């Protein structure tokens, strides 16, 4: 069998735009992705961030061609690739488990894609890619002889060497320890700017997404909740999910009681909280507003009321945890519950102790208003993403059930 449909010959000079139009993916029994529209411009480092089961891995597998969408179109560089198979797409993936072929040497692994496309000087190009990840000296070894970090770099080289229009990274740092992760984050970023490809990075680690990507899309329940530059997402979350998943937030709900031309005031259980209109998604009715913990200041006594500052109190310090650079306080205020405060440890003596009575305040400019209501417990910590196997298990069970019915 010849491979005429496989992308032949030269490399993409730069990445290509990726466009998802109305993508829906249903597995028997559940919907993984609902009506997803997404455009990733060429040359960007784009992160898809979300908890397990949010549909991000499915999105990636759809783009790679490992799954077929139920509805919608996928365009790469303006060309519709929805109907093409995985091996016909100019897309390469760095798998979560790296998926290095254990029966081949490192060089054979890296040259695999080039050889399938019938490229003549596959070996020299593979060596070049290995030099890029500084692993050319292990070209003759087998994958099992390499450490986790080295395997990760080989997986990267194996994908990058093909100069794909789009490089997909499926939680590629998940298996590494913290120190190695940090190191790889920097290396990945360097390589991306060096080769200039479009990177699509899927992760559940918000810190990883924020440090590496220039655009982050937060995904939840098969939809994209918010998309933008990391700082923008952090400073101005639009939904409760983003506010809680990307870092921590203190949220308050209440009715808008008054508003001026620049700001509105919300009555949250008797406390007046002012929010700039420009930073609020909704301007009337029952709304949820919030502030990031590090923007909140602690006071021993009630601060003087000042315009431009929201004040809450008194509350009682119920938990203090010291983490070197900063201290995290949990302050319980009647009617508001627990409020989290981060304080930089700029002085040596600790000012507040468990049980102290304190007041809280923050600048109005730092408050934000959400488009939806806060619901239930915050989702902040997730285990390694098990999306792929979860989907496989689920689809297998459903298939079996379906066949038994038949």
């Amino acid at each position: 069998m010849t491979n005429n449909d496989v992308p032949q010959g030269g490399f993409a000079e730069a990445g290509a735009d990726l466009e998802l139009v109305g993508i829906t993916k249903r597995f028997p029994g559940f919907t993984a992705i609902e009506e997803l529209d997404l455009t990733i411009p060429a040359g960007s480092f784009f992160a898809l961030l979300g908890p397990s089961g949010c549909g991000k891995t499915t999105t990636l597998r759809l783009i790679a061609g490992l799954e077929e969408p139920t509805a919608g179109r996928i365009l790469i560089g303006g060309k519709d690739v929805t109907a093409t198979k995985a091996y016909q797409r100019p897309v390469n993936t760095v798998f979560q488990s790296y998926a290095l072929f254990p029966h081949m040497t490192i060089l054979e692994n890296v040259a695999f894609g080039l050889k399938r496309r019938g490229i003549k000087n596959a070996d020299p190009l593979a060596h070049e890619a290995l030099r890029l990840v500084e692993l050319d000296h292990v070209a003759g070894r087998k994958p099992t002889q390499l450490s986790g970090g080295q395997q990760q770099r080989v997986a990267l080289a194996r994908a990058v060497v093909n100069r794909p229009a789009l490089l997909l990274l499926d939680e590629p740092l998940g298996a590494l320890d913290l120190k190695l992760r940090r190191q790889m984050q920097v290396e990945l970023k360097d390589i991306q700017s060096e080769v200039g490809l479009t990177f699509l990075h899927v992760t559940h680690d918000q810190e990883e997404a924020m440090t590496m990507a220039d655009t982050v899309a937060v995904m939840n329940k098969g939809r994209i909740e918010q998309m933008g530059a990391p700082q923008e997402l952090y400073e101005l979350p639009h939904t409760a999910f983003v506010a809680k998943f990307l870092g921590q937030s203190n949220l308050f709900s209440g009715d808008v009681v008054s508003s001026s031309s620049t700001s509105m005031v919300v009555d949250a259980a008797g406390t007046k909280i002012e929010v700039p209109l420009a930073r609020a998604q909704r301007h009337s009715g029952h709304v949820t507003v919030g502030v990031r913990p590090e923007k909140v200041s602690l006071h021993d006594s009630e601060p003087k009321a000042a315009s431009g500052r929201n004040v809450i109190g008194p509350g009682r310090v119920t938990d203090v945890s010291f983490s070197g650079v900063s201290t995290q306080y949990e302050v319980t205020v009647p009617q508001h519950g627990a409020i989290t405060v981060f304080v930089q440890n700029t002085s040596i003596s600790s000012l507040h102790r468990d049980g102290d009575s304190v007041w809280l305040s923050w600048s109005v400019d730092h408050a934000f208003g959400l488009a939806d209501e806060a619901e239930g417990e915050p989702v902040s910590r997730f285990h390694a993403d098990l999306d792929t196997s979860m989907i496989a298990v689920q689809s297998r069970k459903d298939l079996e059930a379906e066949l038994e019915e038949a």
Partner: protein
Amino acid sequence: MRGFGKYAIWVYSAMAFVFLLIPIAYTIAFSFNDSRRTNIIWTGFTFENWFTVCEAQTVCQAFGNSVIIGVVATLLATTLGTMIAIALVRYRFRFRNATTLLIFLPMTTPEVVLGAGLAAQFLQAGVPKGMGTIILAHTLFCLSFVVVTVRARVASLDPALEEAGRDLYGSPTQVFWRITFPMLLPGIVAAALLSFALSFDDFIITNFNRGADVTFPSYVYTAAARGIPAEANVIASAVFFLAIALVLIAQLTAAARRRQLAKAG
């Protein structure tokens, strides 16, 4: 108490090993027996039997038949069994449970039943018994063992490897031959070796379906009544040494590779 327990299991196991090896040692020793007609009583040491092994022609011919049957049945069973194993793990189809049952039933059926059943069928169909029917019978009982062995290997194969192959521009055929098949190969080889061993040493099923053709075990069985020539011991011993050598080489190279790996890592 603890020390004693530790000591006891070494002694117990050593005794068990000796027990396992006694008849093997006996068989090998009597391949060097300077016997005339029967090879029951030790009459002196000689290498003679080893040099004249094929002078007792029937022994050598029986051995040759066993090798031919073993090779052909192994090829058939390994091919069919590997295909089934892949299908069982990778695909869901309507009669999957029934199929699984059909594959495992021969393993829970006593050999004498398999042998008698096939013989009854060959009898009813008027098929003359001989090498052909022996091969058909051996393929049958090897098939289930191949499926079980290869299935475990298929099941432990990381699906991401094949996905990576597809992602790296490998067509379905290329992915199968360059990734799936090489990854399954150790399992397939193990299954083939097992098949050959089972076929080579089978007596019961063979005995029902052999007609006038003689395999090595059936030769030993018929000769047992009047005494087995030392040449049979020679052949059995030679096969034993060959098999043990192969296994030891495999084990030692694996150990060496592990050590090398440990050094590299």
